C-alpha cells in the first residue's frame, strides 16, 4: 500500500512540473517563427489581414493575429502589459489616447535605431505631426499608420430641398442649415454627431479649435473658462438639443451616430474622414447616393479641424521577438502597403502617398479637399495631451453632455475648469 501512496504522491507532484516543462519548451521554440500581432477592428486591419500571405512569402515568418474592438484592445493591453507578458509582439495602439501612458510605464520598445536602419523604407517620408505623436522623450516608440481629420458629411438632397446648393462653409451656416432642414422635415435631424461624454470629445475638439479655444494652454493651465470654450460647447450642445434626433441619447459614439446618418435620419454629420466608407458603401448605407463631404466649417478662428495620427504600430517592450516584430511593421507600413491602404480609403501618414494622384483617385472630392485643408490648418491633437487621457476626457466631456441635455452650461464649465485644473496640477 505504501508504495502505491508513494507512487501517487510522486505522480501528483511530477505532473505539474512535467506540464510546466512542456510549456517552457514550446515558449522557447516558437518566437523566432511566429509574430504575434494584436490589431484593432478597422478597415486598415481588414486590408492588411488579407495580405498576410505576402508577408509570410517574403520573410518566412507566420503571423498570429488577435483582433479586438477598441475598448477590448485597451483592456487587453492593460492586463498583459501590466503583467510584463511577452504574448504580444506587435501592438496597434492610439498614440494620443494611450501612447503617453504606455511609454511612461515603459511598455513600448525603443524603435529609434530600427526606423533609421532602412533607407528604402524611409522614415523621413512620414509627416512631422504624426512622428511627434509617436516619439516619446526623443525615442521613436511607434510608426503611425492612419491619420484622421474631421470632415462634414452631408445629404445633398435634403440641403437642396431646403434651398441650399452648397454645404455650410461656416459654423453659423451649419446652424442655419440644420435648423431649416429640421423645420422642413420634422422627422429628420438637422444635425447629428457623437454625444457620449468621452466619445464626443474628439469630434467636439474641432468646434473648440475653430472658435480659437483649446482644452488647456499646453503649459498646465486649463482654458475651459474662456469665451471661446463657452461658445463652442454651447453651439455643439444646441445643434444636438434643438436640431438633433428626437430623444437624443447621451451615449452615442461613432457607430450609433453613423447609424442615424446612414439610415437617412440626419442631414448634417461631423465625423472622422477615415470612416467615410461606412456612408458611401451601399451595403451599409441607405444614403450612399446622396451623401457628400466638405471641409470642416469655419468658426471665428477659421476652419481648424483636428489632424491627427489615430493609430500606430509599436512593439511590446516585453517581447522576446523584437527583430521579427519590426520586420512585420516594416512590411505593413511600407510605401506599397500604405498606398494600397490609402487607395481603399484609409488615409496614410506618408507624404509620398498623399503626393501620389493614384492614392486618392477613387476618393470623393470633398474628402480630398478636406485633407488638403487640414494639412494646412489642422491641429495636431483632438483630446487633452496628458497621461491619463480617459480621465481628462471625462472631465472636459461633461459640459458637452450638459449642453446637449440643456443644463446650466456656465456652471458646468466652471466646475469642469476647476476639476481639469486640479487634474493638470496632479499630473505635473
Amino acid at each position, binding site marked *: *500500500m*505504501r*508504495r502505491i*501512496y*508513494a507512487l*501517487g*504522491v510522486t505522480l*501528483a507532484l511530477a505532473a*505539474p512540473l512535467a506540464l510546466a516543462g512542456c510549456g517552457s519548451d514550446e515558449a522557447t521554440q516558437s518566437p523566432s517563427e511566429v509574430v504575434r500581432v494584436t490589431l484593432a477592428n478597422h478597415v486598415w486591419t481588414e486590408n492588411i489581414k488579407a495580405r498576410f500571405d505576402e508577408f509570410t512569402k517574403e520573410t518566412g515568418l507566420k503571423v498570429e493575429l488577435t483582433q479586438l474592438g477598441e*475598448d477590448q484592445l*485597451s*483592456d487587453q493591453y*492593460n492586463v498583459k*502589459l*501590466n503583467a*510584463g507578458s511577452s504574448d504580444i509582439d506587435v501592438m496597434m495602439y492610439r498614440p494620443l489616447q494611450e501612447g503617453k*501612458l504606455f511609454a*511612461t*510605464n*515603459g*511598455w513600448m520598445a525603443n524603435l529609434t535605431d530600427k526606423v533609421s536602419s532602412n533607407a528604402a523604407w524611409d522614415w523621413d517620408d512620414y509627416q512631422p505631426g504624426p512622428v511627434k505623436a509617436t516619439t516619446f522623450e526623443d525615442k521613436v516608440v511607434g510608426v503611425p499608420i492612419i491619420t484622421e481629420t474631421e470632415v462634414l458629411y452631408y445629404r445633398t438632397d435634403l440641403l437642396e430641398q431646403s434651398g441650399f446648393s452648397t454645404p455650410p462653409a461656416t459654423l453659423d451656416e451649419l446652424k442655419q442649415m440644420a435648423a431649416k432642414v429640421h423645420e422642413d422635415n420634422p422627422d429628420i435631424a438637422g444635425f447629428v454627431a457623437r*454625444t*457620449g*461624454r*468621452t466619445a464626443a470629445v474628439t469630434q467636439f475638439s474641432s468646434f473648440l479649435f475653430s472658435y480659437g479655444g483649446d482644452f488647456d494652454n499646453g503649459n498646465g493651465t486649463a482654458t475651459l473658462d474662456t469665451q471661446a470654450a463657452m461658445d463652442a460647447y454651447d453651439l455643439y450642445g444646441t445643434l444636438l438639443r434643438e436640431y438633433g*434626433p*428626437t*430623444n*437624443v*441619447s*447621451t*451615449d452615442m*459614439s461613432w457607430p450609433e451616430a453613423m*447609424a*442615424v446618418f446612414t*439610415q437617412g*435620419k440626419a442631414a448634417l454629420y461631423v465625423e472622422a474622414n477615415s470612416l467615410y466608407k461606412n456612408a458611401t458603401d451601399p451595403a451599409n448605407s441607405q444614403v450612399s447616393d446622396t451623401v457628400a463631404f466638405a471641409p470642416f466649417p469655419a468658426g471665428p478662428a477659421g476652419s481648424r479641424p483636428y489632424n491627427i495620427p489615430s493609430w500606430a504600430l509599436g512593439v511590446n517592450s516585453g517581447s522576446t521577438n523584437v527583430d521579427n516584430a519590426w520586420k512585420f511593421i516594416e512590411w505593413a507600413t511600407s510605401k506599397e502597403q500604405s498606398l494600397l491602404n490609402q487607395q481603399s480609403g484609409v488615409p496614410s501618414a506618408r507624404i509620398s502617398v498623399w503626393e501620389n494622384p493614384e492614392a486618392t483617385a477613387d476618393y470623393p472630392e470633398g474628402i480630398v479637399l478636406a485633407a488638403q485643408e487640414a494639412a494646412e490648418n489642422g491641429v495636431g491633437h483632438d483630446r487633452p495631451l496628458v*497621461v*491619463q487621457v*480617459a*480621465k481628462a476626457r*471625462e472631465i472636459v*466631456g*461633461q459640459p458637452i*453632455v450638459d449642453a446637449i*441635455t440643456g443644463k446650466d452650461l456656465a456652471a458646468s464649465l466652471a466646475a469642469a475648469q476647476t476639476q481639469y485644473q486640479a487634474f493638470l496640477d496632479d499630473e505635473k
Partner: protein
Amino acid sequence: MSVPVQNPASGAAGTVNASDHPRPSQSGFSSWANRHRKWLFAAPAMIFTAAMLIFPLVWTVYLSFTNAQGSVRAPKKFIGLDNYVKVLTDTDRFWPAVGRTLVFTAGVLVVQMVLGMCIALLLRRAFRGQGLIRVAILLPLVATPVAVGMMWRLIFDPNIGPANYLLGLIGLGPYPWLAGEKTALATTMLIDIWQWTPMVALILLAGLTSLSDEVDEAAAIDGANTWQRFWWVTLPLVWPSVVVALLLRGIDALKTFDILYATKGRGGGSFHEVETLNVYAYGLSFDYNEYGLASTVLILFFALIVAAMLALTSRQKER
C-alpha cells in the same frame, strides 16, 4: 536498521534487514509522504485555491494601502489608510455608486422573488404543454448577458428601436429608456429581471415540487382560503428554497457588470447613471489605471458582499 516492508510476491508482511534490500526511498521520502499523506493529497487543491483566491485577495488588500498607479509593476509607496479615507469621503462617485448597487440589487431581488414565486406556483400543477412552457421560460437564462445587453440596447433605442415603435402604436411614448439619465437604471433592472427571474422560478419550483400536498389539503379542509394556505402553509415550508434563491441571486445581482457594461458602456453612461460599485472599480483600474483606489473600492465591495451573505445565512439559522 530494520523496517517493516511488504513482500510483493507473497503478500506476506515481515521484518527484514534493510541492508539486504536497500530501499532508500521508502525509509526517507516515502515514509515522510506516508505520514503526511492527507496534506499531500490535499496539496494540489490547496495550492490552486491559494493561487486563485487567497493570493489575489491578499494582493488586492496590499494594493489598497499603496498609491499604485499607471503600471502595477512601477514602484509604489505605502500610504496607509489614505485610499480608504479618500474613497469613503467621495460623495461624487463612490457613495452614489453604493446607492445604485443597493437600489439595483434590492429592486431586482424583490421583483424576481415575487415573479419567480408566481411562475413557480403556476408551473407546479400539471397541465397540457407544460414541458414547452417550462423550456420557453428558461430561454432568457441560457443567453449570454452581453448578448442580452446588446439585444435590449437595440430594442430600447429611443429612435429606431421596436420598443418605442410598438408603444407608439397604442399612443404611448416615446420613452428615453436606456438613453435617459433618470430612466437608465430602471431599464437595466428591467433587463436583469427579464433574464434572471427564470432562475429564481426554477429554484422555487424545485422546492415546491418536493412538498407534500397533504398539508395543503388539511389546511383547505380546516377552511383556509388560497391566500392563507399560501402564506401560512406553503411559504414557510418552501422557505429554505426561498433563502437559497435570495442568496444566490442577491450575490449575483450585487456583482452585476455585464448587462450594465453592454448597455451603457464604460463609466455607466455619460452621467454615471448606472455606475455601480463594480463598474466604478472597473473604470478606476482600466480607464484611470489607479490600481490603489480600485483595490480599495473592491475590498469595500467584498466586505459588503460578505456582510450581505452573513446577514442572510444568519437569518436562516435563526429560523
